């Protein structure tokens, strides 16, 4: 670089603009860095930096033998610079990508020798909303000539990965999830079931030797272990069902709901419930999974009308554009709408366990299954005035 030929240029002109990167570029004391005072930067560096700052993708100019970094806002965000300071400005590019540098180095140096290169699908750590996360990115390295005709720096652009790489990444994540499911059911559930059995046996077989409060504690241990093991079973089940492939067919919802109502009535023969079934249009969907959706919502309607003198449940449906919306309305316990956000969360309950039994799994599962069908589920309710669930499913 022929620094002797440089002309003084006012950075206020070519670095005009108020985004935090331009402001940081102007306010940094470059005189103490390998790049030297900003007024003396060569035209080649200024032009390349101009391209870099304008680039819509994360982009960085690594200049000189020290690979001093100058970069745009998108790149700053990726590196976790939240929009007020840019401490990586002027730092070594290799230090910013410390973890990936060993695999990135030869491509970078290739560009330093004037040959552009592309490094696909690198696993790197980037910043997402304040946390460092693994991501897959493709790096493009473009040599930038300086006034001497040699390579003054390398323009690095970060690109989103190719679809095939995303697919691979998704498969990997799914595999990990499956593995986690196995760990859950095998390594966590089993010892809990054993713990439950042991505590139960101590109470039932050795109660004469145990003081009453010790028995009560052991009972709690057994119940706690059972509850945890049940929850693990539920998580495994929800995860399995929400990953199962959909086998779509024409589903006769009227017959489906009719048979569920018969089952629920048979399970509680002592109750007198008015069940009104309106028109229930057919839809395309997975019959088994939709059966689970309706079973969960209907059994809730049966359960939460238990304390009402004249229980009434209405199931209706109507076509609305591309969707069929089904309404399941009851006059049961309902809930406070302010807690509606919790309703479809796993293990969330709206009523005390002593008042209405249940693990808080049914609606969480229903929501996931409805969403897998491309539909939505909503609930409207008032405390002690019943609830209406509406399911919108693609027709």
């Amino acid at each position, binding site marked *: 670089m022929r620094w002797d030929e440089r002309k003084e240029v006012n950075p206020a002109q070519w670095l005009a603009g108020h985004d935090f990167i331009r402001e940081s570029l102007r306010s940094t004391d470059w005189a103490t860095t390998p790049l030297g005072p900003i007024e003396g930067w060569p035209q080649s560096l200024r032009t390349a930096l101009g391209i870099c700052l304008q680039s819509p993708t994360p982009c960085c100019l690594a200049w000189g033998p020290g690979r001093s970094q100058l970069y745009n806002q998108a790149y700053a965000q990726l590196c976790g610079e939240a929009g007020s300071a840019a401490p990586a400005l002027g730092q070594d590019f290799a230090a910013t990508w410390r973890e990936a540098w060993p695999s990135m180095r030869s491509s970078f140096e290739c560009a330093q020798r004037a040959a552009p290169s592309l490094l696909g699908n690198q696993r790197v750590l980037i910043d997402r909303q304040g946390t460092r996360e693994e991501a897959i990115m493709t790096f493009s390295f473009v040599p930038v000539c300086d006034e001497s005709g040699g390579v003054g720096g390398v323009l690095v652009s970060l690109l989103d990965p190719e679809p095939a790489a995303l697919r691979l990444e998704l498969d990997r994540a799914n595999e990990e999830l499956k593995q986690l499911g*196995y760990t859950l059911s095998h390594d966590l*559930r*089993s*010892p809990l079931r*054993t713990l439950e059995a042991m505590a139960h046996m101590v109470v039932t*077989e050795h109660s004469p030797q145990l003081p009453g409060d010790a028995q009560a504690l052991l009972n709690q241990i057994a119940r706690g272990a059972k509850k945890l093991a049940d929850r693990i079973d539920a998580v495994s089940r929800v995860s399995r069902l929400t990953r199962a492939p959909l086998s779509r067919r024409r589903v006769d919802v009227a017959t489906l709901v009719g048979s569920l109502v018969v089952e629920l009535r048979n399970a509680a023969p002592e109750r007198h419930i008015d069940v009104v079934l309106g028109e229930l249009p057919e839809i395309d969907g997975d019959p088994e999974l939709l059966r689970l959706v309706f079973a969960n919502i209907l059994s809730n309607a049966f359960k939460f009308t238990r304390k009402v003198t004249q229980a009434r449940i209405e199931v209706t449906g109507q076509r609305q554009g591309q969707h069929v919306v089904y309404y399941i309305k009851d006059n049961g316990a309902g809930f406070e709408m302010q807690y509606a956000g919790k309703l479809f969360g796993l293990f969330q309950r709206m009523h005390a366990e002593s008042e209405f039994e249940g693990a808080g799994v049914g609606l969480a599962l229903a929501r996931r299954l409805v969403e897998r069908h491309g539909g939505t589920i909503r609930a409207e309710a008032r405390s002690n005035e019943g609830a209406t669930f509406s399911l919108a499913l693609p027709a």
Partner: protein
Amino acid sequence: MSAHILIIEDNEMSLALAEYLLRREGYTTSTAVDGDTGVSLALENTADLILCDLDLPSMDGPEVATALRTHADWRAVPIVAFTAASMNEQQRRSLVGTFDGCIAKPIDPGSFSSAIIPYLMPTLRASQG
């Protein structure tokens, strides 16, 4: 006289539960927490039944069973596998020939002691069983 049962299981909780349930029925038990120890104890030929976990550190369950069956000093007694409930039919079938039978884990206290009965000579069965 009731049977002597050797339990080879590395999971302490399962081992403790199995031992408790068997002793409660009047059986004598001995235990090993890895395959190598299990094989040495089995070759002492004092056990009437061996319960063996599949997933053991170092030598695994099928290796234990195979080592015993091919050993010159082995006095054949039934070897029953502890299997995970998640095991599918095909995996279960692959155990035929190596093991005499299997009992699913986690151990169910209600059925465990009766599940081992078929593998014991009638004279060695616990009286309550």
